Structures are given as structure tokens and as C-alpha cells.
């Protein structure tokens, strides 16, 4: 008789964990997935393309219903877990009877931060997190509403691009002096800004939101410098907060996220956590790649095999507002490192490779990301690159030509 394993949250991490478990521990667990989003797990990364009208809402579904069924997984979406009773190994579910588990996995993800400024609660202030948000933003865009997006990170840029593409006049506010400061160095961010502005999006840097004006509904955004931007809607995309409430109330150790060890185990031995809600070695990851690596490790562990998560070399590799952007490792290039830079503004490309003690330790690519995965491989494998240093900037094809017969 297989033991009940319950996953709270039906996002991308959950789906990947089920997939991995099916491969490594088929039949050992009776798996149930409970999530409060009213649909099957979907690819959150693609929400912006849905917003941009590049992808249909239903097309982003990760797995069809029968995929789950074939794996004997009970999927209960639209249900909210209200409490974990670690003692009795039981979950309380809003409007439902409790559910027992022998192993529990928290994949509760995160919530967009809402700035704590006057007016943040006005009607017309939204976030950009799930399909419901997308539907709402689409109606705004359709009505050509003037939108202010707060936050020049990945999420903000995605929202701004989607809205602009869908027809809304968009202004993007960013607190920092450059876009995506966690992924890009100054020249890269500057080039990205130019390319995004070419798409008709107005961008204000060093823009600190002071208050939101409006009588019941958003009318304008006021910045710390006193300037005022007329707006019909405001989207907060200035960071996320891991969803830790359940764990916290259950007495599980929590910092910013749910604290886990190298097998994704929380302070409560039968309870695990992964994805954006988990905090491993002090880091909460906001990207999908680490969640997938964590899922692989956790699945092996639950299958009783040796496994350990060492943390992820974070890399960003996607289209930001339709511009290819890649960033990995120590892309800023700290003490004792050397930087190789190739820039061609007219082609819209910027490439920076960081080398420390003969190894590639970081990279930023804008526009031309053809070799992104090769660079990432070099960074992860910590290979010596002296031999290919002169050519590596111009791509694997040139640096490592196929041996001619």
C-alpha cells in the first residue's frame, strides 16, 4: 500500500516534482496535488506572451488532465489549504474535509509585493502573477487605459511589454539606476532600455513611487521628486514574497522562505519545500530553473536514493520584452577578474564574458544569445578557457570547430 504524498501548490515546481517522481519512485507514493489556482498547472513564464497575444491562454498548460490521471495523481485545484497539523500529519482545506499525508511538499510559490504607499489599496492597482491577472490586464489594454508599471525587473518588463503590445500606453517606473540590476551590468541594462523604449514603452529610472492619487480609483502616480504621472491603472511588479504563512503557523523554521536542507527537507522531517517558497542556504530563488533542479533532487530523495542540492548557478535566459537576454554567474566581474566585451549597438547586441583564474565565471548577453547555453556549460563545468579565449566571444562554432575529416 503506497504512502500518501501531498503537494501543496500546483505550479511549475509541483508539476516537475510529479514528473520526476513518476520516473524515480513510480507506485511508491499516492500523490495528491492541491492548489488554489482554478486550473491545471501552467507555464507561468509564458504569461507575458499570453498578455502580448503571442500565445493562447490554454496553450500554456504544462500537462493535460489525462497526463496527471495516467500517473494516478489526484489533482484538486481551486482548493486552499488553511492549516498544516504536523502532529497528526493532516491538512485542513477550506470548505473540505481534512487530508492525511505521510510526506508533505510545500510548493506554494510567492506573491507579488504591494508597495506600502498611500493609495496602494485603490481600485485599479493590480499585480502580475497569474492568469486571472492576465485577463484583467488584457481588458485594461483593450480599453487603451494608461498603465504605470512599478518595477524594472523581469516581471515588470514582461508586464509592460505585454500591455504595450496589447495596445496600452505604458510607463515603467524603476527604483534603481538601471533595469534588471540583479541580472545585468550597466551597459547591458542601458542597451536593453534602448531596445525596450524602441517598442514604445516609456521608462523612468531612479523613480521612487511616493503615493497613488485617486478618488476610489487610480488617477495618477506621484514620485518622490514630486512629479506626477496620470494613470488609469498601476501594476506592482516590484519583487515577490515567498508564501510561508502555512509553514510558519505549523511551527516550521522560516526566514524569508521556508528553510530547507540539501534534500529540501524542512525543520519538520516529513515536510519538504521547493520552488519560490523555499530558502536554501540563505537563498530564495525567483526563477524556474532552480525549482526544477530542486524537484529532481527531492524526487530522488523521496525515492530513497542519495541526492543533494548544492544550490544553483543562477542564469537568466529568455526574451525580455522581445529582446533575448542571458545572464549567469558573476556577470559584474569582481576583484581579480577580467572582462571581455563585444558591443554593437546598431545590431542591438552586447556580450560580456567574465574570466577569473583562467575560467569563465560569468556572462551577460543581450540580443545575441545563440551561445548562451555553451557559456553556461563552461561556467558550470569550471573548464579552463585559455585555449579558446581569443575566439570564445564569437561562438562555439568558431572556438571549437568540428574536427575536419
Amino acid at each position, binding site marked *: 500500500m503506497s504512502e500518501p504524498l501531498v503537494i501543496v501548490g500546483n505550479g511549475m515546481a509541483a508539476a516537475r516534482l510529479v514528473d520526476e517522481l513518476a520516473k524515480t519512485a513510480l507506485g511508491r507514493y499516492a500523490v495528491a496535488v492541491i492548489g488554489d489556482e482554478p486550473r491545471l498547472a501552467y507555464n507561468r513564464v509564458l504569461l507575458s506572451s499570453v498578455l502580448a497575444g503571442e500565445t493562447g491562454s490554454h496553450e500554456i498548460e504544462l500537462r493535460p488532465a489525462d497526463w496527471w490521471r495516467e500517473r494516478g495523481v489526484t489533482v484538486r485545484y481551486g482548493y486552499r489549504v488553511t492549516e498544516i497539523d504536523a502532529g497528526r500529519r493532516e491538512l485542513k482545506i477550506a470548505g473540505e474535509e481534512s487530508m492525511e499525508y505521510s510526506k508533505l511538499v510545500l510548493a506554494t510559490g510567492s506573491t507579488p509585493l504591494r508597495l506600502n504607499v498611500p493609495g496602494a489599496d485603490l481600485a485599479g492597482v493590480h499585480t502580475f502573477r497569474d492568469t486571472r491577472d492576465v485577463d484583467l490586464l488584457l481588458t485594461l489594454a483593450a480599453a487603451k487605459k494608461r498603465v504605470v508599471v512599478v518595477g524594472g525587473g523581469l516581471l515588470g518588463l514582461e508586464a509592460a511589454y505585454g500591455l504595450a503590445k496589447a495596445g496600452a500606453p505604458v510607463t515603467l517606473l524603476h527604483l534603481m539606476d538601471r533595469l534588471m540590476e540583479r541580472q545585468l551590468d550597466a551597459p547591458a541594462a542601458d542597451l536593453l532600455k534602448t531596445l525596450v523604449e524602441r517598442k514604445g514603452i516609456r521608462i523612468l529610472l531612479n523613480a521612487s513611487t511616493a503615493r497613488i492619487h485617486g478618488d476610489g480609483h487610480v488617477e495618477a502616480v506621484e514620485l518622490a521628486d514630486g512629479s506626477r504621472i496620470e494613470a488609469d491603472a498601476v501594476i506592482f511588479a516590484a519583487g515577490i514574497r515567498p508564501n510561508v504563512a502555512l509553514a510558519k503557523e505549523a511551527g516550521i523554521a522560516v526566514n524569508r522562505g521556508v528553510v530547507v536542507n540539501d534534500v529540501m527537507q524542512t525543520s519538520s522531517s516529513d515536510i519538504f519545500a521547493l520552488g519560490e517558497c523555499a530558502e536554501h542556504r540563505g537563498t530564495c530563488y525567483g526563477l524556474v530553473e532552480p525549482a526544477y533542479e530542486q524537484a529532481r533532487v527531492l524526487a530522488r530523495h523521496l525515492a530513497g536514493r542519495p541526492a543533494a542540492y548544492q544550490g544553483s548557478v543562477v542564469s537568466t535566459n529568455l526574451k525580455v520584452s522581445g529582446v533575448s537576454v542571458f545572464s549567469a554567474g558573476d556577470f559584474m566581474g569582481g576583484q581579480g577578474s*577580467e*572582462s*571581455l*566585451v*563585444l*558591443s*554593437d*549597438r*546598431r*545590431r542591438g*547586441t552586447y556580450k560580456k564574458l567574465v*574570466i577569473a583564474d583562467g575560467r569563465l565565471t560569468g556572462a551577460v548577453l543581450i540580443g*545575441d544569445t545563440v551561445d548562451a547555453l555553451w557559456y553556461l556549460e563552461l561556467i558550470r563545468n569550471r573548464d579552463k578557457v585559455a585555449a579558446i*579565449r*581569443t*575566439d570564445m*566571444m*564569437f561562438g562555439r*562554432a*568558431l572556438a571549437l*570547430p568540428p574536427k575536419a575529416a
Partner: protein
Amino acid sequence: MTAIDPNLRTTKTTCPYCGVGCGVLATPDGKGGAAIAGDPDHPANFGRLCSKGSALGETVGLESRLLYPMIRCKGVLERVAWSDALDHVAHRMQHIVARDGADAVAFYLSGQLLTEDYYVANKLMKGFVGTANVDTNSRLCMSSSVAGHRRAFGADTVPGCYEDLDRADLLVFVGSNAAWCHPVLFQRMLKNRGERGARMIVIDPRRTDTASDVDLFLGLKPGTDTALFSGLFVHLADNGALDQDYIAENTSGFDDALARARNIAGSVTATALATGLSEQDVATFFKMFRDTAKVVTLYSQGVNQSAQGTDKVNAILNCHLATGRIGKPGASPFSLTGQPNAMGGREVGGLANMLAAHMGFTPPDIDRVRRFWKAPRIATHEGLKAVQLFEAINRGEVKALWVMGTNPAVSLPDADFVRAALKKLELFVVSENVLSNDTVEAGPHVLLPALAWGEKSGTVTNSERRISRQRAFLPAPGEARPDWWILSETAKRLGFGDSFSYKSAADIFREHAALSAFENDGRRDFDIGALTSLSDDAFDALKPVQWPVREGGTPGERFFAQGGFFTNDGKGRFIAPEVPVLRGETGPSRPLRLNTGRIRDQWHTMTRTGLSQRLGAHLPEPFVEIHPDDASKYGIAHDGYARITTDYGQCILKALVSEGQQRGTLFVPIHWSAMNASHGRVGALVQSFTDPFSGQPEAKATPAAIAPYEFVFRGFALSRKQLELPQNLLWTRVTVTGGFGYLFADNADLARWPAWLEGVAGEDVAEYRDFGGGVYRAASFAGDRIETCLFVGPAHDAGDWEVVKSLFVADQVTDDQRRMLLSGKSSEGAASTGPIVCACFGVGRGSICDAIAGGARTAAEIGAKLKAGTNCGSCIPELKRLIATTEVPAQPAKVASAAG
């Protein structure tokens, strides 16, 4: 303008480069350029052209041309009207002559001038201004041959003709790299060898391409030619190989000369000792010469450019006189002249030690010429020869100098001294066609725009005494005028109008011809009297004709086969040469001998050939050749840089380590100047010792030291316009398709390049920086076209400019090409074709090596595949070298060659 431009007809003219004097068919393209082909009817080349000749069409552009008269006012050159410029020149000359005498004025002419220009210049100075201070860059070229001929024959007669090269059974090259310097003749001799089995011997301190595939190579010690030929003379005498009758009837001075020869090299052993050759090689040479009746000895700058050049010439002539092998079909001494009209200059007497028309400064000659010219102030004594002339300028004795069509600040020995001397002139006139060569930079007071090749019209004479027409096929640009017109106008202003009222080159030629025949009666070799009565039309239609062309004489007359020398007693003279010694001591501080010469694809100081991208591609940088043993001894690395120091100057050059270079000697090419290289003014290195008879300087044995010179960075730049490069940089400028190329080496901080580029490039710039790796590359664009391209990198790896050049050529680069441009590698992954070997068809070393790897085992097979070597053939020796050095896995080939 009419639909069909009459100028677009094909014009028969003559190549302006070496003394072979090839016939050229030029067809203007109507856009200022011209299509060039060899003239199949011309007896010098029968349709062949060398790489330089083939590229003539690329060198007639007007970019670098001087188009208007200019006068220096308060330091700056300002455009003026012709009349003002000529008035100024005439007044200043008159003033200086009146104050300091006629000898304070001098002309320095060029083997590039047409005979008619030469004639007028010579007549004006020697007959009317009253000085023989008329010398020419031929002084640096073949004046030792002139002096040698005059001593032996009583006149400057070249007895041989090209036909002899077809009919000889033995061809002896002395100090001549004909394969590179007279390629078309050399191919003609190879044909003789192939068809008639003629054998070839090369005598040269360097194993040049001429020597790459010959029956015998004698790499003698520099300056010992006289010993070798003295030894030969003795050998001929002691082995019954003399033509006793010829000697008895037609010569004098035999005994003294032979006695002297015995002192210098009385035996094979003594000869070997004196020349550093093996006894066996010496004996072989002696035997081959002795046993071959039909032998032609060809000699060139290796003989002439020496402080004992005249003696070398006579040592050679002695052997031919002693065997009667002179002026006979297939048997003769033969001086190969370097310039298109050195011979024409000699014919009019445009040398300080000649008067006119092969007449010297003997009283009867002086009187004859005076009467013919109706000259008021005939020069009565020799003038100053080139080197002495510039020394006199430096001493302030000569105060006015007029330079025509040459580049003395580059080409004369101790060139820095010359450049300084020029600054002391009161009147410095330059008539030129290029605006900025080192001479023009040397601060002339007056610049006069002269017609260039393709625009001017007249005659030239080649190495075999053949007079050919240079004809205009392009319109005169700007206000440029023929040199003869400029001189005649000056003469009028000096008050000699009646004697210089020429209407055309034909007028002048007729007078020149008349003077050659004036009171001649066969007493003078140079006689073209039969051409005195040419009509203008006949002159225009004049076919190549070999002199003498005596009134009523038979064409194709040969000299000296039956004696008939032009000495007083009609006998040829044996001359006893001095014991050979090189001027200038080598020692611990100057352990090496510096040799100079030409390279295959460049001409003189590159003011013309430098305009051709094809010619620039073979050897783009000034270099020094050194033997591997010396290289290791002095720490010189192949393809590294080296500093060459003499007592006269310094150069920093690319080092080529070559087995062909003799131990203890260096070789540097003469072509580069301050215009196109920062540290390559080779003329500044060369000592100015001159030959006592010819005044020709010793240009091939200057004591020198060499040391490695390190550069941290190397790189190159390509640009549509000329660039002002940063200071303290070693650079060479090369013409490339679509613009200018610069190769450079640098020791300054890499960071100066981005700063420099900002000043040069526009908005649209792509950049690659790896300062840690010592690399900076950038390119600027206008639309899709590359405007400027800069590559800087560590010395060992500065990027491949061949690939970048191939992209620079295009008017637009694709996005993918732009993406890969700064990699310095071709996006197709196709390897670069490497440095150009065949300049005619632009075939690179890479392609050739591929063809060889692909099975081509002979130059012919390579030619069949790539066309390389099938035009001028001057790259064939290099092709053979590549075949020899390229690894070929195919076993059978090795077996075959072992068996064969």
C-alpha cells in the same frame, strides 16, 4: 560629349618601369583608369607583361597628383598661375647665375623622363645657362656601366640585344635578380633554356629567385666580382681560350690587364680564396665559360652600385674582349638597365660627365655641339655627379636645384643628409606628378605639375638600344604640362626663346636625331640620323627601332663583332682593374654588410606602384633579410622586428630569416619612404662612397649592425581615407582595395586606441575589448559599409588582415559578416587565402598550398588550377619553393622524385 569617346581607342605605348621597355596596349575605361595588355607586336616582350606592368591600370588615378603650379609663400605652398611660377623660376635662376655663376645652378633628372624632356633640359643647362651640373638618378643605377663602356669601347655602347638572349647557350647573371627586376626578359631566357637547353649561372651574394633553379650558383663574397672575372680572364689565357686574332687586330692593353688579373686572382685557388667560393664551383664556372662560345654575361645593380663598379664592368668586358665574344649573335656582355629611359638619358647626354649625343667634353666635341646648338655659353667641363652635387648643395656652393620626376631625398645614399641639404637651397624647384613624396616634403619653393605616364608623349630607349614611343592615352589632368614645355617656357624667360621654340615632342626628337648625325660619319656610335626627317605623323606612328639608324645605313647593325670601337685608334681597351676592396670597414660595432635592392612588385619609391592594391599584397612591409646563423647569433626572430644601424642612420624593419641570404650580410629593399613607412627609409642607412670613374655610390655593402626590437602589440587598420595614426608607432601604409591599409607595431598602452578611434570613427561603431588578453578591435560603419577597421593584439597574435580585407572590399557586409567581423575570422569558416604570391591574378599562399596538397606537383599544374604564375611568371620560383616545402602525404610522389 560624343557617344563614343575617341580617347577610348586602344593606344600602343611603352611600360614606364624597368629597362626592358615592354610594349603596352592601353585602353582607357573612360573613368580615368585603363585596361592594360602586353603588345604582341613589340619586339621587347611579344605580348608578355610582368606583375608591375599588368597593374599599370591601377596606378593612373589622380588621387595623389599634383595638378597646379604652386609657390611657397611664407612657408605655405599656394596655387599660382603658370606664368607667375615660370617667371619666378626664371628670375631667381638669372639672379643666382649673375651673382654666383652658372655652376651655382643644377638640374637633377630622372630615368623616368622622356628623351625629349631630357634633351631640352640638357640643352638648356649645358648650352645656354652654361653649366654641366645636369645629373640624373641613372647615376645611382647604371653609371658604372656607362663609364665601363666608355673606357673599353670609347663610347657608352651596349653591344648586346635581346635576340642574343634567345640564341645564347650560356647565360651568366652577375649581380642581377632578373627574375624580379626584369621578369619579362627572364621568362624569355627561360624559354631559351627550355627549348634550346641554354644553361644559366647566377653570380650574386644573395640566392635570389633568379638563382632558385639554375645550373650553377656562385654565392661570392660582396664586392669580389672583379676577382672572379680576373680569375676567369687568367684561366682563359692559360687554357688557350683566347681569340688571338681579335685581340691583335681590335684591342689594346691586353698585357697590362692580364698581368693585373694575375695579381688579383692568378689561379682557381686564388680566385676561390678571394671570392669565398669553393674551388670546384670556380673551376666549373671557368670551364663552362671557356667551352661555350655563345655566352652572354648580364650584369646589373650588383655590379654597378659599387665604389668599384666601373672596374667590375671592365673585368667582365675584358673576358668578352679576350674571347671576341662581343656583338655577335648570342655572345656579348649585356648591361641590363633599371629604368625605362636610362638609355635615352644617356643618348642625349643627360649626365654630368657627358655633353650631348654620346659626346663628351673634348674640345672638338664641345665645339661641335656649340655650333649645332648655336649655344652662347656652352659648358666646357664636367659637372657635379649626383652624390657630389648634393654635397655641394650642403656646402652652399650650389644654390639652385631643379628636380624632375625623381625622389632624391629617398633614393640617394645617406638620405637624411640629402634631405637636410635640400633645406639650404635658395631656389628649389620640383617638377613632379605626385603631390607628396619625400622630395616634395623636403620643402621646395616651387612645385610644377608635370604630365605622368599615360598623359605624356615622346620616346624612350630600352636596354637593347631600342627606341619606342610612349604615347598619351589619357587627357592632361588639371594644369599639368609636359616637362619639355615647362623647360622651354623657362628658357624663353631666360632670353633663349629662339632656340627653344618647340611646338611638339616631334620637333625635339628631330633636332635630337639631327645632332646625333651632325658631323658623325660613323665616328660616333649613337646615330639616328635617318629619323631626322620624320614627319609629325611618322613620329606618331614610329615603330620600335633599334639604333644606330644611320642615314643610308642597314638596320640591325651590331657593334664590335669586327672591332670598330669608338676610341681614337678604333681599338677596344682592356682595362686593368684595381684590387677589389669594399669601402667602409666592418668591425665589432658594425659586423655586417648591408645590401639593398628591389622587390618583385614595387618600383623605386612606390609613388606609382604604391597605388596598386595587388602590388602591395606580395610583401606589404619593409623588411630585412638575414641568414639563420646570423639570426640566432644576434637574437633575431623570423617575423619579429629588428633595428638596423649604420654610421648614417637607423631603420626598424620586419625580419625575414632566409637561407638565401649570405652569412654576414643583410638585405633590405629600397622602396619605402617616410610617406609610407615610419621606420623604413632605407636610403638613410646607405653610405655615400662613390666610384672614382662613374661617381656611382656603393649601395650594397654598408657596414651595419642589427639587433632585435621588441613590440608588445601589433595590429592593422583599414580605412576608406588616409589615417593620422597615434605618435610613437611603427607603421607601414599599404594600398588595399577600397582604401588604405596600415600595418603597425606598438609599445604604448592599449588604452590609447579606443581614444584614438573616437576621433576617427563616426556614430555606428562595433567594439571588442579584451584588455586582459591585450586585444582591442573595432570597426565603424556607414550604412552597411565598413568605414574603418582597427585590430590591435599581442605581437604573436594580431589577427588576420587578409580576412578583414576581404570584407573591407565589399560595399556592404551582411549581418552575419558584421557579427563575425571583429573575430578576424571569416564567418564561412573558410580559411584566409594568405599573403598574395601571384600578384597578377591575386592568388594567395593558402590557396596554392591547398592546390599542392591537392596533388599539384609542378608550377604548371598550379597554374592550370589557379592561373597563378601563368601571366608574368615571376612568382614561379616561389611556387616551386612552396611545392618543395609543402608536406604531401601522397607516397608515390616521393618515390617518383627519389627515382627521378
